[in-house]
């Protein structure tokens, strides 16, 4: 079965790949993922903010007590010796590139204009085949408006595209009031792909200790629906290739994402739960499904249920909301 697809300009044998997560921190896992047939490797995000904070804190921790006390003018060896930068990440790119043959997609979360551009360039120099920009922030300030947030993302995308020659994908959140229009603007920056969607880490609350407690919940298939809607809306209308990220757990989930127009499927929760082999099982299952359903190729199915080809396109727009509510009423009569 021909399951090939094209994502960010790469011809891939199939659409399944690990999404950005700590999974790829271990080189052994990366190798196992490739053995499981991953079409590409998406790396864990490099967080500029974290690096900056790290560097500042390390500086404060080492410089603070220095030059205070005659017996110990410093507490760390040669302060100039250490450059607390993105070296570890860049090194990891190099190591993964050496270890695997599939495309390696690095991931970057910046905060400053310089950070996005500089780190993007370093990532390219380290040998990444493509770059996924992880635009992850919570616009919590009451004086920050939607337009500002959108403008910022557009600026980042444009700057990074101007800085690097490798393909650039943008991983975005769905929390834009006019997501279609926003994507349209993004497209004009020349980005090569969109990853739908970022999953926010949601803080939980420890009711005994009275503290907010960061917590990571794995996704479930129910989260796929939001992705399906926007894949269906965008895939027939925009040029950048599309990856589905969040909520893909079963072969049926994969099929749905492809049908709504995904060029690539990024897996995280299922891999964290079941290990790298889950990717192999989904790949085999997808192939079996295509055969059983007498598809000629994956491409035949790709986008078959998007907005332009779906028999009831209104379902992806407001109609779906009405229908769903009515269906619920049917099942739960007053």
């Amino acid at each position, binding site marked *: 079965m021909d399951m090939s697809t094209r994502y960010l300009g790469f011809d891939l044998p199939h659409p399944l790949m690990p999404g950005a997560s700590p999974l790829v921190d271990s080189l052994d896992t990366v190798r196992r993922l490739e053995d499981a047939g991953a079409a590409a490797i998406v790396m864990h995000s490099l967080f500029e903010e974290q690096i*900056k904070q*790290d*560097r*500042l*804190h*390390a*500086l*404060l*921790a*080492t*410089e*603070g*007590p*220095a*030059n*205070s*006390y*005659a*017996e*110990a*003018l*410093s*507490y*760390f*060896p*040669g*302060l*100039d*010796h*250490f*450059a*607390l*930068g993105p*070296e*570890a990440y860049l*090194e*990891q790119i190099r*190591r993964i590139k050496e270890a695997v043959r599939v495309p390696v997609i690095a991931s970057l979360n910046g905060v400053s204009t*310089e950070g996005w551009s500089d780190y993007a360039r370093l990532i390219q120099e380290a040998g990444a085949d493509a770059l996924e920009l992880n635009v992850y922030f919570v616009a919590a300030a009451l004086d920050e408006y939607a337009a500002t947030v959108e403008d910022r993302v557009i600026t980042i995308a444009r700057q990074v595209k101007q800085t690097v020659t490798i393909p650039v994908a943008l991983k975005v959140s769905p929390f834009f009031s006019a997501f279609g229009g926003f994507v349209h603007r993004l497209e004009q920056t020349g980005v090569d792909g969109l990853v739908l969607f970022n999953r926010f880490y949601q803080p939980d609350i420890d009711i005994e200790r*009275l*503290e907010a407690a960061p917590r990571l919940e794995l996704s479930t298939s129910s989260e796929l629906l939001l992705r399906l809607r926007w894949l269906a809306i965008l895939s027939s209308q925009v040029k950048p290739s599309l990856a589905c990220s969040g909520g893909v757990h079963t072969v049926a989930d994969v099929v749905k994402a492809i049908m709504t127009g995904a060029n690539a499927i990024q897996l995280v929760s299922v891999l964290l739960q079941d290990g790298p082999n889950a990717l192999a099982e989904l790949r085999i299952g997808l192939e079996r499904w295509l055969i059983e359903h007498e598809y000629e190729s994956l491409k035949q199915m790709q986008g078959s249920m998007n907005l332009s080809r779906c028999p009831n396109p209104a379902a992806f727009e407001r109609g779906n909301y009405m229908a769903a509510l009515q269906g619920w009423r049917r099942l739960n009569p007053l």
Partner: protein
Amino acid sequence: MADTGVTRTETALVDGNQAAGWVAYRCSEVIAIYPITPASPMGELADEWAAAEKSNLWGDIPQIVEMQSEGGAAGAIHGALQAGTLATTFTASQGLLLMIPNLYKIAGELTPFVLHVAARTLATHALSIFGDHSDVMACRQTGMALLSASTVQEAQDFALISHAVTLKARVPFLHFFDGFRTSHELNGIIPLSDDDIRALIDESAISALRQRGLSPDRPQIRGTAQNPDVFFQAREACSPFYEQCPGQVQDAFDHLAERTGRRYRLFDYDGHPAAERVIVVMGSGAETARETARFLERERGERVGVLTVHLYRPFSIADFVTALPETTRAIAVLDRTKEPGAVGEPLFLDVVAALAEARAVGTPRFAVEPVVIGGRYGLSSKEFTPAMVKAVFDELTRPRPKRRFTVGIHDDVSHSSLALGEALDVEPAGTTRAVFFGLGSDGTVGANKNSLKIIAEETGQYGQGYFVYDSRKSGATTVSHLRFSPQPIHAPYLISQAGFVACHHFPLLDQMDVLGTAAPGAIVLLNAPGTADDVWASLPRSVQQQAIDSRVRLFAVDASRVARDAGLGRRINTVMQTCFFALSGVLPADDAVERIKGAIDKTYGRRSEEAVRRNHAAVDQSVANLIEIPVPAEASALFDRRPPIPAHAPDFVRRVTGAILAGHGDQLPVSAFPVDGTWPVGTSQYEKRGISAEVPGWNAELCIQCNKCAMVCPHAVIRVKTCTPESLAEAPVGLRSLDYRGEEFAGSRYVLAVSPEDCTGCTLCVAVCPAKDKANPRRKALEMRPTAEIGATASAAFSYVLALPEAPRPQVPLAVKQVQLFQPLFEFSGACAGCGETPYLKLLTQLFGDRAVIANATGCSSIYGGNLPTTPYTVTPEGRGPAWSNSLFEDNAEYGFGLRTAFDQLALQARRLVQALAGQLPEALVEGLLAATGRDEATIAAQRERVVALRQALAGIDGLAAQRLLEIADNLVTRSVWIVGGDGWAYDIGFGGLDHVLASGRNVNVLVLDTEVYSNTGGQQSKATPLGASAKFAIAGRASGKKDLGMMAMSYGNVFVAQVAFGARDQQTVRTLLEAESYDGPSLVIAYSHCIAHGYDLAHGLDQQKLAVDSGHWSLYRFDPRRLAVGERPLVMDSGPAKARLADFMANETRFRVVERDDPARFRALLKAAESESRLRLERLRFAAEFQETKDK
């Protein structure tokens, strides 16, 4: 050094340690190191250069090896030398003493070797980290050549001379320069080029060294044992080498002069060619003497001169005598050491002997044989100023000068001291002098080092920087002395009259005589908020008067606000530095700003762009916030500087400690001091430093009375007590109280008080507080509040609570909450804010302080435990408390063991005497006294009462036995002997002794404060440093695992061994100390202590301790041999298997993170090894915990 007129080339701004260290590094193949102040930087630099792959002269990176002690370093060097390599080491003071046995060997074997020494005071009546020649003078008999450098330039040049000559002469060299004054003084020097170094090193001599090296291919035997028939002659065989050596040194000096123009002689004479009065001196003091002699000759026409001794051993009589002008009539020899009981100090005796020798061999040199007198100066870096030099010259004019004298002190006991005239300014015109008063934490010193570099590079001026540090580690003050001049600067003494004075921390104006250093018309810059009027009004009256009298121009900048706004927190250095340049005019203003920004880029560029951005922002805002404060004609303030000590302090504390605190320690006469180094305890309570802008405030309504805050407070600033409701009748407003929660003191009230003037603001108490406001959990029972807001009320409450009666000890249950009701007998130390060691010591004193004797190894705990001016160990209302003392670094276990042995002996004697006098004493009393063996509070209290009764009974009994028993009766009450020290002591230098003491079976308690690094000397690795951590001497991350000291001690079977971490499980800590102390045998408690050398904000120290335990980095356990006796498993694990990732623990600390960031691949390997090592250690413990003795059936 004679000025040869050679054109000046590019200078480098370095200190003596750097200058000597670099030459040593370039000329060596094996370098053995061990940290000791003030020589540590030489070893640290060597290690850094090796890590940066800098090579020696022959293209190789020297082997740098850290040893367990200086004795070990000397042994390693001896071996390396015998294998035919070029080896060196660096040390000072006690470290040098530990090397002496090997120095004899190395010299006896005629081995080329150079030992670089930053000369430091030897510990006698007290330890001192500062400089004098007592250490090197203790080596003058070893056979080492002694070459003395007086300046930073000479420290470099003589390092080379030493390395060059030792190869040819085969006489090993001890090259020394003054600790701190030269080792730490930044000065512009002309660096030696590689070609210069190569030119002086004789390759053929290296070949000869190789040939002499031990090799199985041409075996030799060295180190034989010889008998009376031959030893003597064989010992004399080396003499020709010593005879030739001075000539070889002079040849090397001459060779150096040809290449560099810097000409030296074995004895350099400066001064009037027909001088009548000459001072003979060695080390940095020579510079002061030379400059003063020149001044006296130039300005006053005095015929005086100075002979600087460079090569002190072998002492060349001929060169010495010919260096003196023939006109010399009187000589004063100055020694920077004291040799009690000797005819005179060593240099003096050598000079006398040399002159006598010259006379005896009939070399007529002098028209009249000169009078020679000898004096001591500058012990422990005591200032040696031009006025003192003049006093010595003046003494030589007297018809009957003092034969032995001291200069620089007021000796009103032996009347040895010379009277000083007024201060002399002998510096050439055109010297810019600036003094900066700051805090260690505000970055003042760093900024000043930076300014020196900028000015030296930008203007080509010579610069000199010397920095005076505090002996306290929290709220530490620094005073920077900076000079700039178009001429080389020869002024190795502090600035007393500065044209620019800055005070970076406003409260220092109250504590130190800041304006006392301002010359007339000086510019004075203050870090102060408010308008010009506000600033003037906030100056104490006497400070205002000084400003008026000295006609200073006064400026202020609110640097704290500017720095805070720029995101720099308390680091005001950039702001003050910018204002210094703006006001001093050393550089054009715009140039200065550019250069400062350039320096910021250079300093922080690689390490943090955010730091660069914030510092640039601070620079831009600095000058805009600078204001001039008009100085009116009259002082207006109605308040003045506070006395340093309150009036209610004891007389000695007011007279002596108060003077030291006021900065007048130099003026105290000899009679003010104890003759044997014995000082009163409990003096830290009188020094109210008020160093924190925020202190914890108590929200009583939320408090659950867990007392964890009091438990964790490193400075004993939080006190809790129970009391009767009536005792609060006169409580000050603001002292709140609660009904005590707990049956033991049901019906009483509970009070908690905080001392704002002693708090360091570390916030550990707030971090540990579990009591939150349910409606607003951000609010806890303790929360930080501005000192200005609650300080006065809190102080009054604290004083009131201190005066309330202490809890009746026998009634206090021994759990975390209740033991905090015990009075801490360790309070308000100078330890770092958030220190992880002091809570253990405080707890120790709460539990056993009234009967404790503490032997303390040198290190952090001896510094915050016993460094003047004030000390933290204190007493109960009955006057009991820990007797504390420090012997050395290396011998602490043995020292404590000696104390134990003595107390055991005295107790035995006392018991024997009680038995002997039994017939004359009440029967019940005798029985009680002899039967009391328990160590619990009730038993001790009862025994104390019996001892009182015994004393009363003995008063009525005549005879020697009764009298002797009276003297030692106190020993019938248990003495709790504690041996305290850090991991550097226990794991490394003192391990041999510790091992022996543990094996002895004696009842000593050892508390190891394990920070996993040499903290006091600045973070060098010890064998307690964990795998993967970066430390000095293990820059790339320690590759071997932490030594399992506990497991080693357990192997004896009869030692109580435990590990604790109070931040992880405080109750286990309390329980462990109690069990350790109650065990009638040796106990070893290893206490995890978070430390600034781990590289994170210590406000998180407790969380990080928890993580250390949860991740398996640190296990909690107790091995109690008593359990063996009752058939139980002796080892009890108090922490379970790892439930957090070791990587997460490591990720929080800079010591691990730097390795990860710098070399990710290496870090991964180290992490893996650390994980496996930690697993193995836990497995080993688990296995041991399963162990149970099999009893014979």
